[in-house]
């Protein structure tokens, strides 16, 4: 077990597109990051899923490296972040936020597969590093950022929140 009190910096910052696909059969959503000049638009079969292009938006991906010990945490499994505004009392994200207190802002780390059929989500190590990074320089006394994985959402399609994404920013929401 590392004894380093990690001090994270953002590294490997890549600019590209987050491409969202949907399967009409199961209602699942899938996402992948593309660094191509134009976001790819494809329709293809993958196992039981028929993935259809739903949209894309400019996005940025990054990893973390500890400036003290050099440890690298890759966030390839994270597709975005969402400020939680959900008020469903049955939602685990809401319960965690309420337990954390009123000066805590809950953000959901979104993984590539909303169905979580594979049992995977953003890694525990990634979630830990996100929490440490976004809290390490906060200047407002008492303020805390709490990042949780999207596997805790009541439903990624129904869970209320503000996705940090460069899409629809000129529209009325």
């Amino acid at each position, binding site marked *: 077990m590392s004894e380093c009190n990690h001090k994270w910096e953002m590294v490997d910052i890549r600019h590209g597109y987050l491409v969202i696909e949907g399967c009409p059969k199961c209602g699942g959503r899938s996402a992948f990051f593309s660094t191509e000049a134009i976001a790819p638009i494809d329709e293809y079969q993958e196992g039981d899923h028929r993935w259809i292009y739903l949209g894309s938006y400019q996005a940025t991906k990054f990893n973390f490296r500890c400036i003290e010990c050099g440890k690298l945490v890759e966030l390839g499994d994270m597709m975005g972040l969402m400020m939680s505004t959900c008020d469903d009392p049955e939602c685990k994200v809401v319960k965690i936020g309420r337990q954390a207190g009123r000066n805590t802002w809950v953000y959901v780390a979104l993984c590539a597969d909303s169905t979580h059929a594979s049992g995977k989500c953003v890694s525990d190590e990634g979630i830990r590093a996100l929490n440490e990074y976004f809290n390490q*320089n906060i200047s407002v006394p008492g303020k805390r950022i709490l990042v949780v994985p999207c596997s805790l959402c009541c439903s990624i399609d129904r869970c209320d929140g503000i996705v940090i994404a460069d899409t629809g920013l000129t529209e009325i929401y």
Partner: protein
Amino acid sequence: MKLSELVEKAEVKAINDYKDKDFEGVYISDMVSDIITGAKANNLLVTLQTHKSLIASANLVDVAAIVFVKGKMPAQDVIDLSNKAGIALFVSPVDTWSMALKLFNMGVK
């Protein structure tokens, strides 16, 4: 530099109640995905963007205040979210370049 000095010297207009405090450095961007990788805690953010998503990103990186240029005015629910997050909001009629020049001439680095 204190936010009250920003109001006085850069001639920006406050659109919410704010606690006067020091800010450190400036970040200019209209992309929320860029803000979370580029802006630093306690920065002053200069932008044209008025979407609610901007506040979600500014709050995540603990931005101290936001200046909306070219007279862009955010909607009331955006102001409400900023109030909750304790992020000071200002409006200026000048464009982004002119605001950058003003801040530079004020000694903000």
